[in-house]
């Protein structure tokens, strides 16, 4: 068994598991947010039991639409708050930040623990070695009732990281390199196990960023190991970090990845830095290093969406937010922001957006006739200054 299989076996209380086995996992933590929780709550009520399996193991986070941009969104907040009061469940409802980041800050992500989240980017927890299983609302309701989830043990693909990142590259470029390798369906239903000496040089934040985008390859699990080598995986793909260059996912698929140098020069109109992919302190710092003493180009809008309140506080203390404001950025409250096209910086027909988020599907940020490029905070910030897509020059 590889490391992921070891923890799956442990959680399902069997000695061994193999790919294809149907197992039932005991869930350590259940999480949902304001887009998925209301539907899950409705389904949970239909089951008709007086309590959730363990109220201490449930966390609800209002992060997608906060403060409420519509009355419907506010209704969803209230549904969650009422459910929380009724069952003694913690509901973070004051703009604490994106669920995936907040979970990390709360110290809830232990290696080998099973997290079920009603959000596709639940895989972000793999940066800590937690096994994040993304589900929809109905399956979440079932888990709320039973504390268990049926799971088919996936085949595992190993990704061996070697070397160290160049200065102008970060976790996002590693994530994009995986998408370059596998495309948007190359790892459907597989587990991705990232290991090797290259992991040692990556911060927890970078590991989270890499795991965050494993769902974009179709993967069932994204997981970072601290082991130097790995047995019992179907195949191993090696990525030499020393040889990475800044990458960008071009419109309109996260799998349409090319070196920034190949597509440099595209004029842009809006830049978004933030989200569960790249809204952590180190991402804000990366952007601030590029923006320090410079100004956003005329007719370009820069929207910064910190991933959590703690990120805001830390960035404020370190003077980073002042640097961003001086450069011409608008800084929103922590949350999901415009990433999924509901509010706070939508794109219109003809807009060309560079975003540090995770998806650039047609219409993802508003209009289907807007184009979205996905890149690192450094690339996004440098492009905001240049008014066109460029590589950052970091020393």
């Amino acid at each position: 068994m590889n490391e992921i299989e070891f923890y799956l076996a442990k959680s399902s209380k069997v000695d061994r598991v193999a790919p294809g086995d149907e197992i039932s996992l005991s869930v350590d933590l259940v999480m949902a947010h304001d887009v998925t929780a209301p539907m899950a709550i409705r389904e949970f009520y239909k089951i008709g039991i007086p309590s959730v399996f363990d109220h201490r193991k449930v966390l609800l986070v209002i992060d997608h639409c906060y403060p409420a941009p519509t009355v419907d969104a506010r209704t969803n907040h209230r549904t969650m708050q009422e459910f929380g009061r009724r069952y003694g469940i913690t509901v973070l409802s004051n703009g604490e930040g994106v669920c995936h980041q907040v979970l990390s800050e709360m110290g809830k992500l232990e290696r080998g623990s099973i997290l079920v989240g009603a959000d596709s980017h639940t895989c972000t927890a793999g940066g800590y070695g937690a096994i994040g299983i993304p589900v929809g609302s109905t399956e979440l309701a079932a888990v709320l009732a039973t504390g268990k989830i049926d799971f088919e043990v996936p085949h595992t693909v190993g990704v061996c990281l070697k070397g160290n990142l160049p200065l102008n590259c970060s976790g996002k470029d590693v994530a994009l390199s995986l998408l370059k390798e596998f495309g948007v369906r190359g790892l459907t239903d597989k587990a991705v196990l990232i290991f090797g000496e290259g992991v040692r040089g990556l911060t927890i934040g970078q590991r989270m960023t890499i795991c965050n985008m494993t769902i974009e390859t179709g993967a069932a699990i994204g997981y970072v190991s601290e082991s130097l080598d790995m047995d019992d995986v179907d195949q191993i793909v090696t990525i030499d970090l020393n040889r990475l260059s800044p990458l960008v996912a071009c419109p309109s698929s996260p799998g349409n990845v090319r070196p920034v140098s190949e597509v440099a020069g595209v004029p842009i109109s809006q830049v978004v830095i933030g989200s569960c992919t790249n809204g952590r302190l180190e991402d804000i710092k990366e952007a601030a290093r590029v923006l320090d003493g410079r100004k956003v180009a005329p007719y370009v809008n820069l929207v910064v969406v910190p991933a959590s309140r703690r990120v805001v506080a830390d960035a404020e203390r370190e003077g980073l937010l002042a640097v961003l404001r001086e450069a011409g950025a608008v800084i929103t409250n922590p949350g999901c922001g415009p990433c999924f096209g509901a509010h706070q910086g939508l794109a219109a027909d003809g807009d060309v957006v560079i975003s540090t988020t995770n998806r650039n599907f047609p219409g993802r940020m508003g209009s289907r006739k807007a184009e979205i490029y996905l890149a690192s905070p450094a690339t996004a910030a440098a492009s905001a200054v240049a008014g066109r897509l460029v590589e950052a020059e970091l020393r």
Partner: protein
Amino acid sequence: MGFSTVIRGRVWVFADDVDTDQILPGHSMSKPPEELGKYAMSGSAIPDFPTKVKCGDIIVAGFNFGMGSSREQAPVALKQCGVALVIAKSFARIFRRNAINIGLPVMVADTTGLQNGDEIEVNLRTGSIRRLSDDWCVTGIPVSAVALETLEAGGLIEKVKRQVCGNEGRGLCSAGKDHKDH
């Protein structure tokens, strides 16, 4: 509810990699659940799909249908606007599970050759697909027994209800009775 494993309907063809933002755009996710059908496929190449689709229609698509978000609103919207079945060369993991869980059948098959408006008959148990006009046939992967069981129960919640209330918690069930129908 009368779930049938033989489904006959008119075809809508979609390409590879239809993502969840195309199936149900982000801005419409917060809408009340009973209104979601009005936004089905509104981010796709056929944005006026909800006004054109008829109850019982079938979507046939390429690889990786439903990639992206975990939003269950996507299959709910399809079901609500009348889509009876989605057939694709492959599905994204979360969408596939969500669809079955809410009672929308999905089946894997290569339906290259079918065109918009074709009438087909599909047998979920055998995986057979037949075009009514000329008896063109193809066989896909039969829907699994576990998935059929969920579909026949009317979705995952009905199945869980039987589990929780049938075996361990008969006494517990009455406590939540007031929520049973909503």
